């Protein structure tokens, strides 16, 4: 029900932030997320940041699949 796009924060100014989505720079409102800083990644929905993205938890995902693939091959 909700289109949300990951974007990198380039600049902030009070309640506004400029984010980069594939080299498109968009001005969004960052009031709904605490402590948005340049370099952060946020989810953008309808002109607002709604959440910060935390660093990808890649390792736990890969571990899940290693287990599945190994058990299948037994």
């Amino acid at each position, binding site marked *: 029900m909700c289109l949300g*796009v990951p974007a990198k924060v380039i600049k902030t100014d009070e309640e506004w932030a400029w984010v980069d989505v594939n*080299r*498109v720079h968009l001005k969004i409102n960052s009031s709904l997320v605490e402590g948005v800083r340049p370099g952060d990644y946020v989810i953008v929905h309808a002109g607002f940041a709604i959440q910060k993205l935390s660093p990808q938890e890649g390792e736990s995902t890969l571990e899940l699949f290693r287990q599945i693939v190994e058990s299948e091959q037994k």
Partner: protein
Amino acid sequence: MRIETPPLVRAETKTKEVIKLAHGSGGKLTRELIENFIKPKFGNRILNRLEDAAVLFLSENLLAFSTDSYVVRPIFFPGGDIGKLAVCGTINDLAVVGALPLGISCSFILEEGFPLETLNKIIDSMQKVASQTGCQVVTGDTKVVEKGAADQIFINTAGIGVIRTKSHLSIEQIQLGDQIIVTGTLGDHAAAIFVARQNLPVTSSLASDCAPLHSLLGSLWNLSGKIRFMRDPTRGGVAATLNEIVKDKEFGIELSEDSLPVKPEVRGICDLMGFDPLNLASEGKAVIVVAPDATEIVLGILQQHPLGKEACVLGRVIEQPKGLVYLKTNLGTKRIIDLPVGDPLPRIC
């Protein structure tokens, strides 16, 4: 359950008997308008082919004749303006049927109060393209209507050209195994217009790709035995163009998701707004159907030209499914690419 494409139905209720914006978008409703209203009245052997230009026989030459009207908003946008679009658009409609443009007509409908300085800028822009291409505006007309009766400026251009290809480029020439080439990235024009029109707080290098294609496509005309068909993917984007090609035909088209040429900025706008680049108009690109053994040569010629540097293979003509266009996704699954319904609308879901 198979759904047979139902006969195009006339709107049943009173509330539907008006022109909607979607009738002008190049998708399903445009097709309905043409089939239900235009063809039944104007229909003839030439018109019914619904090609980008009408091919007429005159003495020993085949002539191409095309017309289009331009109502784009805003009238000035990154990469061009309504005037440049009007000249390029008609030159391109002639070029894709293999015709060297000889001259175009230009009709203005102007709203009372439209600034002369603005008109001047638009005319300058049109003349710039005319000079570059050698295709002059040779006749025209101007009408003015009362304030409010038109939105600033509408332009109609009609163009005439001589067919230079030895064989007739047409959908009937298309064969199984043919390759679908596109001369560059998809959707640049529509994405740029959308940002300009909506006044979004966006900065990017997005600009319309509006450009005359006669020189790019002209470099292929002597390969006409191997070039089956060309069309420029304007309203409705590549999705509309490819669906028009396969409609009621005994072949289909397969596209590959990893070979869609889309600029990152266009991808960015699509991600933000929920658009599909396949549905977005280009104004300086052509879709070319070529014989498979000519693919490398054609790509080589196109890529030498400034307007064709990013030319690539988009897909191929296949036996099944007949009459459909589908995309092979990066997961190895398939997705039907249908004729879009109307212009893309920004969505939140």
